[in-house]
């Protein structure tokens, strides 16, 4: 249980809010690189800020204010040039740093004028990594984008993005809530399939550890012991807004009542021949069944979404009754409060990396290790989200077949 004031502290991420200031100290994934195969500009909303993401013709990415500083036209309808994004209304051109490069009519009338030097558009840095576009909305100098070791595992990678109509923090609390697997994913799935049982093995013990980049949660169930990897290694609540279980699930606040769920997945491939994936596909995962109007409940992350949106647009934590299964959730909240205070005091918060020597294939705990065997008879069905496009499925199938047929690397 929290007071409504403390709940607001956790949930509100707009500019100037304590949590907004904390989350702005980290690079946030906001789109897939491959989305720009077909797009030049994409309107995005990040932590309550309306922005436009674009790729110019030099291949540089930019993230600027949604509205032109001239007369507030929508920059999402602007057009990219060799360098920068030009407003479609009167042609003002801005680069990725926010500098105004051209004001056509002003410069015709006043060739020696300096008006454009005085005008800027709000702009944030964007960097491509692991098939994602990452934005940094905080103060300079920006930390490094973590170079997680999992990005380098051999396998077919894909990205899926969904927009969830609820606050980000209830999504992230799910990242440190082991017991929900037993009920939301195992037992409820049984019910959805029309089965009466047997029910999933019950959790009997939970444990938590801390490391440089978040928390690890560990569990023992009726069918496991402390020798099981679910206890020995556990899974990662990756700071500040991600779950890592071999794949990544970031929960990026769009605003206080909408969250961008960004999933990064990998399917191990057979054989040992080098596999080089030129392009990581990015697809939009639906959350609602268009036929019934109900939330989709067939896949793991869709089931999570149902729990999160069910808690309300912003979960009212003044009404909750926490118990033993919530120890991780409480630990997460406490740490969030501490890190908000750290930022307010001018310190770097948990998990920011500034040393390039540290930021090389940074290790994250993973059950089964980084190099896991591929499925034997072809790629496993995609269990995480509904709506995987046929072309992604067939590309994975093709990659799997090619790798299975290729001679092993000598």
């Amino acid at each position, binding site marked *: 249980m929290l*007071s409504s004031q403390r709940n607001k502290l956790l949930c509100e991420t707009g500019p100037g809010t304590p949590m907004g200031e904390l989350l702005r100290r980290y690079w946030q994934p906001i789109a897939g690189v491959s989305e720009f195969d077909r797009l030049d500009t994409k309107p995005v909303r990040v932590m309550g800020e309306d922005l436009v993401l674009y790729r110019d013709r030099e291949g540089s990415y930019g993230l600027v204010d949604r509205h032109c500083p001239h007369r507030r036209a929508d920059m999402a309808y602007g057009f990219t040039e060799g360098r920068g994004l030009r407003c479609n209304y009167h042609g003002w051109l801005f680069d990725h740093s926010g500098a105004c490069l051209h004001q056509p009519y002003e410069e015709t009338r006043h060739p020696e004028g300096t008006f454009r030097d005085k005008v800027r558009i709000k702009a944030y840095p964007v960097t491509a990594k692991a098939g994602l576009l990452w934005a940094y909305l905080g103060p300079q100098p920006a930390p490094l984008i973590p170079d997680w070791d999992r990005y380098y595992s051999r396998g077919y990678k894909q990205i899926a993005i969904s927009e969830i109509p609820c606050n980000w923090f209830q999504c992230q609390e799910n990242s440190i809530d082991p017991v929900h697997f037993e009920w939301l994913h195992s037992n409820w799935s049984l019910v959805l399939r029309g089965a009466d049982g047997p029910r999933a093995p019950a959790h009997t013990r939970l444990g938590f*550890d801390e*490391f440089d980049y978040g928390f690890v949660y560990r569990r023992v169930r009726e069918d496991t012991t402390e020798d099981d990897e679910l206890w020995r290694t556990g899974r990662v609540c990756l700071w500040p807004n991600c779950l890592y279980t071999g794949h990544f699930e970031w929960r990026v606040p769009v605003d206080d009542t909408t969250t961008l769920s960004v999933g990064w997945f990998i399917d191990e491939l057979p054989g040992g021949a080098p596999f080089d994936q030129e392009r990581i596909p990015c697809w939009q995962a639906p959350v609602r069944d268009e036929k019934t109007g109900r939330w989709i409940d067939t896949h793991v992350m869709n089931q999570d979404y149902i729990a999160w949106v069910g808690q309300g647009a912003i979960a009212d934590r003044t009404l909750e009754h926490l118990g033993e299964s919530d120890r991780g959730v409480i630990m997460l909240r406490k740490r969030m409060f501490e890190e908000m205070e750290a930022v307010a005091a001018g310190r770097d918060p948990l998990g920011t990396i500034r040393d390039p020597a540290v930021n090389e294939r940074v*290790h994250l705990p993973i059950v089964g290790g980084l190099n896991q065997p591929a499925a034997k008879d072809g790629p496993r069905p995609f269990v995480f989200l509904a709506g995987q496009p046929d072309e992604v499925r067939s590309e994975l199938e093709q990659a799997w077949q090619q790798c299975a047929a290729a001679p092993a690397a000598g």
Partner: protein
Amino acid sequence: MAAVCRGARGRLTVTRTAGEPAAAAPGAYELAEARGYGLTAGDLRRWEPFSAIQVHWARKHGLSADDARRWAREGVGVRDAVRAVRLGMAPEQVRPWAAAGLPPGDAVEAAEAGMTLAEATAWLRVGFILPDAALLVRDGWTLAEADAARYAGVDRYAAAGR
């Protein structure tokens, strides 16, 4: 209470602790995990029965293997032990908590919030686990206020039922 014994594989194991995993022979996977934290097989052996991530966290915060084991014997995991040492606590200080049937690591959480065992027990009696209570205490709640707020909605429905 925790105990130190030889596990099924003949390896030193701290059992019945609240926060530590039992030891098993480190395999290739455990060694890979250890390398991820810059640890060697020798480090893992010296730090039995702790896992790589716990060894990393302990070393990072200056907690020795012997001290980590002393805390583990009292049922306190590495994460809590690091915090306890920071607060100047000694391992035996958690014994009254264990004797009262509370997770020994909760003694650390309580100490951070300035709560005594008696206070923690009082919060527990009305249904608050210690970490929840500690957050509320830090936020300035009294037990009476929290108790009333927590059950306000529930009591309303219970009264209607009656």
